[in-house]
């Protein structure tokens, strides 16, 4: 049976087919759907862990107990998980452990473009890289086989285009699974004190040599000899881009990007007149080939940054693209993503933007509030950075920073990596205010549960973390709760907390506008009464998608109702998009905003 599947769906299916029944992950684009889809299969255990480090540790525990365990994260999640990863490379896995890293060339939904193939080399962990959904399904199975056979964790590297493109996949029946778990004591292998680690360290090098030998004959390191004038070495999605425009050339398509098959590469090089490495981001393969003394072309003609496409590969190798249409210069207003109508973050960041404080921000939908017109955020580095940065900044500024430093972090992000920085603020007597935006879900990645929502990934009811109690327990004396739909109170509470000595926490609590489970109130959409609108544009300062500006000069004479001489137009609400949050109504001093 064949089905159209995304790379992420195919991985979940492949893992299920080959008998994996255990997965842990923290959501992150473009990886999120892998664990979501996996969790729906019969008889599996799948969890959202609070962060990627914990997910890997959970995975290691399951593997040491003898399970086949899969751990999933986006590329920057591997930074968080790096600590256990580098040492599980020494201990090996007992059962099997596959870590999926979903990289994001072009940074479609990420803060950096790091190339996680470097982690494979750094941590001495083999890495496979599929090029489409069928390969994603095949390779996850191979990854588990390699993990078991070589007693090693294995990386499977995805990129956004492989994760989120769909292609046809051949479904197979799942193999019969049997329970392989039991308690096995083996301290020499699993207690990494120096004198054990030194022994394992040597073992790791032996394993890498075995894997290098394996790579030479691995069937997914595949030579396709056609026209011998030009050879292309490539892996993952760039194989498709190259193949799309140069079907006639010869290829060495690498299914395993680390370690590389050195003999095979030399053999391929000897068969073709000239050859290229086609790889996105870092010259990872290229540098290793050049270290062999082979004359290969790579980053001399290909860019380091951003994902490729077929036309780009063609232009790089041929130096031109004849297909392009000659277009006149076009002035196209950008259309960036925006906070949704009724988003609870809007009221909070409207207030923060007006406070003229320095707002250290974090990762989530609310990061979008740095943009005009809200301009409510001044920094975004990584998950959890807001709290440590706010503390460091207020310490460095001393009196100059008093009442002027705010850190803002979402609920899921706070749980991911904000709790310990908050403890640090209490411990080291900070002076900043931290706002936890509690929208009761992990909104940015598409509504995943977390430890404060009261539900697990697989829908079971569970304990729900109470942020206020936690903050108190960590040593924060001033903890307030606000409703960001109430602008006046939000402003009052923020001003009060900023004027206090010592660290404070403000919990800005209101469910995400897209989270149906928590929408209990009936809200009516709003409209603007043109008879009353004075054209002051204050409502436009919310940057709410349904609210737009209409110039009098574009309106029929009879519709123009000037309240003042200088009035140039009116604001308009597209009521079909409005969810009735009333923020604009609260701001309108002319009372022009009414229920439809």
């Amino acid at each position, binding site marked *: 049976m*064949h089905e*159209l599947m995304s790379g992420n769906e195919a991985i979940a299916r492949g893992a299920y087919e080959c008998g994996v029944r255990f997965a842990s992950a923290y959501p992150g*684009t*473009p990886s999120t759907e892998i664990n979501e889809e996996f969790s729906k299969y019969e008889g599996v255990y799948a969890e959202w862990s609070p962060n990627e480090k914990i997910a890997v540790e959970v995975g290691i525990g399951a593997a040491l107990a003898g399970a086949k365990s899969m751990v999933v994260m986006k590329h920057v999640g591997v930074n968080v998980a790096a600590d256990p990863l580098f040492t599980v490379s020494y201990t090996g896995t007992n059962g099997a452990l596959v870590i999926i890293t979903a990289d994001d060339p072009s940074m*479609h*939904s990420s803060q950096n473009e790091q190339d996680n193939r470097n982690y494979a080399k750094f941590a001495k962990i083999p890495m496979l890289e599929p090029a*489409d959904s069928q390969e994603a399904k095949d390779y996850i199975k191979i990854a588990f086989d390699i993990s078991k056979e070589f007693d090693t964790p294995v990386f499977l590297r995805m990129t*956004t*285009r492989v994760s*989120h*493109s*769909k*292609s*046809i996949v051949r479904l197979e029946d799942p193999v019969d699974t049997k329970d392989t778990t039991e308690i096995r004591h083996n301290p020499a292998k699993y207690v990494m004190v120096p004198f054990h680690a030194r022994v394992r360290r040597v073992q790791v090098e032996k394993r890498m040599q075995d894997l290098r030998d394996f790579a030479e004959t691995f069937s997914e390191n595949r030579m396709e000899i056609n026209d011998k004038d030009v050879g292309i070495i490539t892996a993952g*999605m760039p*194989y*498709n*881009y190259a*193949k*799309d*425009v140069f079907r006639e050339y010869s290829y060495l398509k690498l299914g395993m990007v680390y370690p590389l098959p050195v003999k095979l590469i030399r053999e391929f090089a000897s068969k073709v007149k000239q050859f290229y490495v086609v790889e996105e981001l870092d010259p990872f393969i290229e540098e290793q080939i050049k270290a062999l003394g082979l004359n290969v072309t790579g980053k001399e003609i290909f860019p380091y940054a951003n994902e490729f*496409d*077929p*036309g*780009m590969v*063609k232009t790089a190798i041929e130096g031109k*693209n004849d*297909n*392009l*249409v000659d*277009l*006149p210069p*076009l*002035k*196209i*207003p*950008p*259309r*960036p*993503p*925006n*906070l*949704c109508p009724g988003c609870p973050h809007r009221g909070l960041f409207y207030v923060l933007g007006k406070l003229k404080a320095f707002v250290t921000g974090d990762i989530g*939908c609310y990061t*979008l509030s740095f*943009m*005009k*017109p809200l301009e409510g955020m001044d920094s975004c580095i990584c998950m959890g950075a807001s709290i440590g940065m706010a503390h460091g900044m207020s310490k460095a500024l001393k009196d100059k920073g008093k009442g002027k430093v705010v850190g803002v972090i979402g609920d899921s992000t706070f749980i991911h990596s904000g709790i310990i920085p908050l403890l640090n603020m209490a411990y080291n007597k900070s002076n900043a205010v931290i706002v936890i935006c509690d929208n009761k879900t992990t909104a*940015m*990645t*598409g509504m995943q549960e977390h430890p404060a929502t009261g539900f697990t990934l697989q829908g079971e009811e569970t304990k729900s973390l109470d942020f206020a109690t936690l903050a108190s327990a960590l040593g924060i004396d001033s903890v307030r709760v606000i409703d960001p739909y109430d602008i006046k109170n939000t402003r009052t509470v923020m001003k009060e907390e900023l004027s206090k000595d010592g660290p404070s926490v403000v919990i800005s609590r209101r469910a995400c506008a897209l989270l149906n489970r928590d929408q209990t109130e009936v809200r009516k959409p709003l409209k603007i009464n043109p008879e009353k609108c004075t054209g002051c*544009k204050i409502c*436009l300062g919310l*940057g709410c*998608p349904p*609210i*737009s*500006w209409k*110039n009098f000069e574009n309106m029929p004479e009879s519709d123009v109702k000037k309240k003042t001489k200088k009035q140039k137009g009116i604001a308009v609400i597209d009521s079909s998009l409005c969810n009735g949050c009333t923020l604009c109504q609260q701001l309108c001093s002319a009372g022009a905003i009414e229920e439809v």
Partner: protein
Amino acid sequence: MINAVTNILLTGVGGQGILLASEIICKVMITSGHDVKKSEVHGMAQRGGSVNSHVRYGEKVFSPIAGKGDVDILISFEKLETLRYLDYLKPDGMIIINDTELYPPSVNLGEATYPEDILEIVQKQFETVKVVNASDIAVKAGNIRTANTAMLGVLSMYLDTIGVDVWKNVLRNFFPEKTVKVNLIAFDLGRKA
């Protein structure tokens, strides 16, 4: 054959049902015996941002995205978004435009102007440009949310090797029972537009 792959690019604004429409095209092409790949980017773009979805089909498809200058048919669910992706079209490519304007934030704030001459620009550069008002069709069909199905109806008229029954069977299986009828009406109205 040098290039036996057909490239369709769907563009518009997050929330317009573009990913659903491209999913339907894929199913139609699979049913018709083609190899198919499609690609789009999820995540941030869904928050009212510019959205695109590539659909490529033929005997054997490698890349899930088309390069600039490769697209045969551009289906634009919003006028401005047509311009943003115009350079993806082949010189003899065709365009289907939904005659709807959705203002981006900079236009809402009065800081940028929404280009008034989009249709003229497009018609000057490309020979085959079909402009329809899919939202009107959807309302006529009985549900504003069927505008994307109406656009597929328009598209089906230009892919004449695919029988109308194939489309309708896919639509019947795709939608939940209670919305099948209204989607079929929108599809038929799109075909007549």
